């Protein structure tokens, strides 16, 4: 498993795709942060994180599209499947590699908050009374970072599952984009639905509605469990795809 993990991580940076992903992610994060906080004179990070989640629509497929599709095309999956590695080992190795890159980039993008903190410091010095809290709420930011990492992991698992279904990377990418897009806009659709029951179900499934608790600094256990379950289910499905192919 560790060998596959290392190989995948390495292959992100042999091909341009790893650099493209990191570059685009950091640039997008920096721009969004700039426009949602600094430019609009606000310490509130909610809209920054929400918009960042939407950027996953494009970014996550970049990470996941090649994971299995390429192996299938080059017939190298035969090597992995005949090596003394379990299917779970293979899937987890790949998942962890994509996750490492994803989580790493999210953590690096946290430097975006430094300007806010430094502004806050100067503002606090200028504030004579010091009665109100000035500056970003660290708890909120931490909760949000945890939240988007979990959402991202769920999406990585989905993208990986899609990649295991096809040998065409582009097809894998497009389908992943579509799935993530639908999962994210479910919440927006909800505003136009009048039937309570449907709204309830949709908001239960919605990725974004569960994120709202994180934006207020709450580490919502049910949401954490929900995101982890999505990841788990799709990892399991990926394993099943390979199991089934063996028996087919």
């Amino acid at each position, binding site marked *: 498993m560790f060998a596959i993990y*290392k190989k995948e991580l390495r*292959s992100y940076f042999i091909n341009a795709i790893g650099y493209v992903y990191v570059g685009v992610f950091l640039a997008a994060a920096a721009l969004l942060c700039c426009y949602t906080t600094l430019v609009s004179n606000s310490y509130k990070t909610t809209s920054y994180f929400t918009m960042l989640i939407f950027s996953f629509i494009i970014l996550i497929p970049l990470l996941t599209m090649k994971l299995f599709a390429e192996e299938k095309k080059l017939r*190298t999956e*035969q090597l992995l499947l*005949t*090596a*003394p*590695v379990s299917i779970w080992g293979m899937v987890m190795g790949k998942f962890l590699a994509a996750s490492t890159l994803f989580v790493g980039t999210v953590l690096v993008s946290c430097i975006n908050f430094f300007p806010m903190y430094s502004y806050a410091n100067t503002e606090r010095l200028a504030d004579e009374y010091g009665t109100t809290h000035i500056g970003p709420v660290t708890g909120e930011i931490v909760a949000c970072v945890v939240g988007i990492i979990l959402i991202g992991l769920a999406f990585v698992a989905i993208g990986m599952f899609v990649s295991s279904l096809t040998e065409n990377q582009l097809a894998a990418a497009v389908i992943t984009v579509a799935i993530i897009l639908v999962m994210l806009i479910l919440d927006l659709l909800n505003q136009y639905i009048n039937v309570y029951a449907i709204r309830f179900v949709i908001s239960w499934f919605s990725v974004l509605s569960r994120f709202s608790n994180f934006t207020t600094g709450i580490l919502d256990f049910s949401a954490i469990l929900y995101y982890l379950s999505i990841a788990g289910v799709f990892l399991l499905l990926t394993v099943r795809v390979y199991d089934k192919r*063996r028996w087919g």
Partner: protein
Amino acid sequence: MIKIDHLVKNYGANCAVDDISFEVQRGEIVGLLGPNGAGKSTTMNILTGYLSATSGSVSVAGLDVLDNPLEAKKHIGYLPEQPPLYLDMTVEEYLIFNYNLKGCKLNRTKHLEEICDIVKIRDVYKRVIKNLSKGYRQRVGIAQALIGSPEVIIFDEPTVGLDPKQIIEIRNLLRNLGKDHTVILSTHILQEVQAVCDRIVIINKGKIVADELTENITRAVENNRRFQVKICGPQKEVLQMLRSKPGIIYAEVLAQRDGDAYCYTIESEVGVDIRKTLFYTLAEKNWPLVGMEALGMSLEDIFIAIVDQSTSKNRYERRDTRAKTARGRSDVEQQVAKKVVESTGKKQGGEFSALFGNDDESEQ
């Protein structure tokens, strides 16, 4: 070392492997031979745990591949039909990846160096696989299979697409590997198995049609009963004499002539050496014999004979004969020879590739 027991694999309604059973002992080199689509690759894929079987069992080094895949796979080195190479890696990175993947415990640098020396890829060790020629890629694939020094090595058509020099090198390599590994090799080239293997298992349409020691088949080939003779004398009478002579089952005039001598092809009965009697008979009649040349019975003939027969007959008897091979080799020889006799009436000097062409067409 390897035990395949009543293995069946269906792809939907299509039966790729139909009740195959055979065993391979430690240190044996076995060739799986058969036309395209005979089920060779499927058998190998099941053996390596890439595919599962519909029924039957496969065990390697005493470990069932389906029940205990991880342990069993540790004993296997596999080179699939298309070498599974990561084109963007260098040879070194690729081999190190495989070393880690297989959880190899041997000293890494030393082990990889040894392998590179065996397959002769030292000079491309630092190059990216994408830029290597087909022959080198194949060798890197072989190197991959050797990592961890597995007891069982399985090669699926290892010499396809190589130039003649490389083919010879790889055959030598395989023969050397056979000294301390158990090797299974699939191919549709008869010379290859003849050159490399101790035993030949012929598969056609998912069934084993023959399982013989290579030397038995080779002996049957060398045990010549077909000759081209050049005789000076009246063509018709000579032919009549040849055809009426006891011991000769077939005689025909060839268009070819050598001075005033006519050329004939003759074939004797099994176990009869007609050369001497033929000489005396001709001397008696005063027809000088100016040439006699043995016509090699090619492995192609044998293959065609066996494959032809297999389509109609039950093959179980043949499997039983294998058990006897150690004791009654002459039995086997005679059987093989008989098959050839039966077939040569129908097909002469059959071109091997043509057989496959026909075979494929008939399947469609």
